[in-house]
């Protein structure tokens, strides 16, 4: 935009210099972790004097961490499997109803993304405690689904708004009932958005920490919960190895989504 202003070389250099610093600030903490994870030393030295895979070995050798990894992956998958179909149906409902009803439903479904995580976490803790469900996979799953529904809706609502509803009318006129129109026409045509929504819901669960900290425990502890606990207690480079792996998984998922969307 500023390129439209004639003769702005000096200010441009200043602006880009400043921006480069801000971008370095944004990327530094993510990137600094990577070399540390390959360090051979117990200490957090930078740059490491010798490299090794010992912290990755520690991670993969630990039954606690492996159990947490398994829990997190299962939770993420279940969250996506529940949240995306529910989100799709809700979004169809919002799209077709229009008016005040749509605004209300949308408002209710988006509340979990506005309410502070700590409040959802303790409230859910109380509710689950009353049913003796604290520490169960089900308890965390419900919490994650409720956070993933707004995420799915944010992806699917604009996709449905762009969708050519004449297609559904055409299918209906050719003899399809609503179930067949949704399954045979809407779902296949929104498959890219549905894939995005699925991966975003998966990531939401994978990344969620506050509800996990309060609700999950023991064998059902999630990765973020264990990471939080170890950050508070002691920080050795195992966390660096886990962080690197964790970031690699997320970046891979994001790349898949973006590349699929472009193709």
């Amino acid at each position: 935009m500023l390129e439209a202003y004639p003769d702005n070389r000096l200010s441009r250099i200043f602006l880009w210099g400043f921006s480069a610093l801000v971008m370095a600030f944004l990327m530094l903490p993510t990137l600094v972790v990577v070399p540390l994870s390959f360090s051979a030393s117990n200490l957090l030295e930078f740059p490491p004097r010798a490299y090794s895979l010992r912290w990755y070995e520690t991670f993969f050798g630990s039954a606690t961490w492996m159990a947490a990894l398994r829990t997190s992956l299962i939770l993420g998958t279940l969250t996506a499997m529940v949240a995306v179909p529910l989100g799709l149906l809700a979004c169809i409902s919002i799209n077709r109803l229009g008016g005040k009803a749509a605004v209300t439903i949308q408002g209710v479904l988006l509340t979990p993304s506005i309410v502070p995580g700590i409040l959802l976490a303790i409230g859910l803790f109380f509710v689950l405690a009353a049913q003796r469900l604290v520490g169960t996979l089900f308890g965390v799953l419900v919490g994650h689904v409720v956070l993933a529904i707004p995420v799915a809706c944010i992806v699917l609502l604009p996709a449905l708004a762009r969708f050519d509803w004449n297609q559904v009318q055409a299918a209906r006129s050719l003899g399809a009932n609503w179930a067949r129109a949704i399954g045979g026409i809407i779902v296949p045509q929104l498959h890219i958005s549905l894939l995005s929504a699925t991966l975003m819901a998966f990531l939401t669960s994978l990344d969620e920490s506050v509800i996990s900290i309060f609700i999950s425990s023991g064998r059902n502890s999630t990765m973020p919960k264990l990471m939080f606990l170890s950050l508070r207690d002691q920080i050795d480079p195992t966390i660096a190895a886990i962080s690197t792996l964790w970031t690699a998984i997320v970046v891979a998922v994001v790349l898949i989504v973006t590349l699929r969307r472009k193709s």
Partner: protein
Amino acid sequence: MTATADPALAADALRERRFFLSLSLPALFIVGLAAILPILWIIRQSFLTTGGEYTFGNYEKVLSSGLTWSALVTTLELSLATLAICILLGTPLALALASARPRVANVLMAFVMLPLWTSILVRTYGWLVLLRRDGLINAALTGSGLTAEPLPLVYNFTGTLIGMVHYMLPLFLLPVYAAMRDIDANLIRASSSMGASLGQVIRTVILPLSAGGIFSGSTIVFIYTIGFFITPAVLGGGKVNPLSTRIERTLSTFQDWGSASVLGILLLIVMAMIGVMFLAARRLSTRNGAAHA
């Protein structure tokens, strides 16, 4: 003249509406069960003693405690400071990104979004590594002789603030960048042709036209930072205690469900008040905007 409506057809229309409504019921049920019911439960819990009897005792205890008020102050201080720094750092960055060629801008945006896709715990760990007494930054500072003693960068307000700005900056940037990218470059050309300096162009054209984006970004920053838990809990090292960490400590250390609930309600009230303020501010500014137009 229109004929009176056929009741059978009106009933059909209602049935169709009910069908579409029913499609959102499963999602509404889950949200009700896992988001709305919990909030109501917090309200209920705030009036209960540990024995389960109704009481105002929790409120008296929490509201008379100095810790509560210092937590409230810390919460607001953290939010305001985070917002101020986000505006100072984010606005120029958005301006630079919006001025870049689309290709370059897309690549740079991907890098800016990288932290957004990184787990909050990974980032918090990264900051610990960087900011500790024996961390990389202090090692660099003392090693180069810039400072004799390591600086206290973490387990305090500064560290918490750094972590929170780092979390919020990409989220603040998105709406500001979007607003700036939508500004017509011909407006810049027009104002420069009328003799505006670059500073004047930024002040009189770009900033007013991206005010909406800056406003949305600020709202997002406030909504998120008010209840932020992980960053103060880890980077604050127990010395920075906004409402969120007080709630956690009251619940897990003292097992005091009632007081934790009161603190939760306090957090909700603060959020609602700030939300109302933002709404009022937006209404006021759009009204003024309409009056100018």
